[in-house]
């Protein structure tokens, strides 16, 4: 089972840069178990022509995934999945998390919750999902 370009859902006019959409969806495929270690991502050319976007944009997404250690460039073959989820140093992974936390906290503020009250909710979920 490998991923096909048609399984990506790209919205060029959404405001989210296309390379970010690609990165996020590769991550989602990984988390969802649709991509396994050792499997290949579609080639830049396939992706660009089937999704109708600039090849440089796809290359950029793949290069980022490579820097983050999610994929590995295999000579003459393309991009291979290297790691399952836990990748990058702590700082990178924290920044990955920060936007989700930010919007959760904003929501908490909108609901008029105090620091303590928000932390209480966070701690509850931390307890429910031990390391």
């Amino acid at each position, binding site marked *: 089972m490998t991923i096909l370009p048609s399984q990506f859902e790209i919205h*060029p*006019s*959404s*405001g*989210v*840069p*296309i*390379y*970010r959409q690609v990165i996020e969806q590769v991550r989602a495929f990984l988390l969802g178990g649709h991509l396994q270690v050792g499997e290949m991502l579609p080639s830049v*050319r396939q992706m*660009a*022509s089937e999704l*109708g*976007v*600039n*090849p*440089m*944009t796809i290359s*950029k997404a793949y290069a980022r995934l490579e820097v983050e250690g999610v994929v590995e460039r295999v000579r003459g073959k393309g991009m291979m999945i290297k790691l399952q989820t836990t990748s990058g140093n702590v700082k990178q992974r924290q920044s990955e998390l*920060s936007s989700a936390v*930010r919007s959760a906290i*904003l929501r908490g*503020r*909108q609901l008029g919750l105090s620091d303590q009250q928000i932390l209480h909710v966070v701690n509850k979920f931390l307890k429910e999902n031990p390391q």
Partner: protein
Amino acid sequence: MIQTSTEPVIEIQALEKRFGKENVLQGIDLSIEPGQVVGLIGTNGSGKTTLIKCLLGLLRKSGGCSKVFGVDSWDLAELQKSRLGYVSQEFAILPWMKVEAMCDYTGAFYEKWEYHLVRRLLREWNLNGDKRVGALSVGQRQKLAVILAMGHRPELLILDEPVASLDPVARRQFLQSLIEFTEQDKNTILFSTHITSDLERVASHLAMLKQGRIAYFGELESLKDRCKRLRIFSDQPLPKDFAIPGAIHCEINENHALAAIPDFNYETVSQISSRWNVQVQVEDLNLEEIFLELNGIRSETNDAEAN
């Protein structure tokens, strides 16, 4: 790693063009490197066509410098011209010729001409080779012009609003052939358009013309990363001196404010929220919204009022 030359394909410095008293181009600086796909946008009359014509030596500049493949635009010779393809807005054709004959006729001017490529494109774009050119619709003529500009496999394509008259199907096919064109690493495209969603698909870079100058040039995706809308909520009415540094505009409405900023980062947001004790929501903007914001028009439609 192979060392690649990064000599710009197009180099423009302080380019000026005046028509009588009208200063259309007022000091354009633009450098386009091999492999870039640059979308040129700007409001009507902002100087896109004039810029392209000066670049190709079809109009004489009033000042500054403009080069293509390292040669002054006014002195472009056969060699440089054989390396570029151009589609203008006013495409001159010979109405009595049949489409296929028109292709062969154009091909005769070039040393190498890709008959196979041209035939394939005619087929893919549903252009009947037996039809007289004069009987083609505006959109079909535009398709033919684009095909003719690609027949000699140029390294540089310059397209002045190539898709204005194309239907969505043809536009998509056109974009597809541009993407195919860019599979050759060093192939470069400069194209002007008003259709920002097309740009979002194929452009790697964006050049925005405003009042005769380049208001923005850079990677399209990093523009989207940086240009954001902030929605600000406060428990109390916002103070009179409430302001966001660097904002393109900021609209204050009692407890809310709406601002567009060109250089977003999370630090700015936390500074704003701690300094004024407000909540800040960050929203992504697409290219059309960014274009409107940068041209001083608020992009947001007020949903509450519309309902």
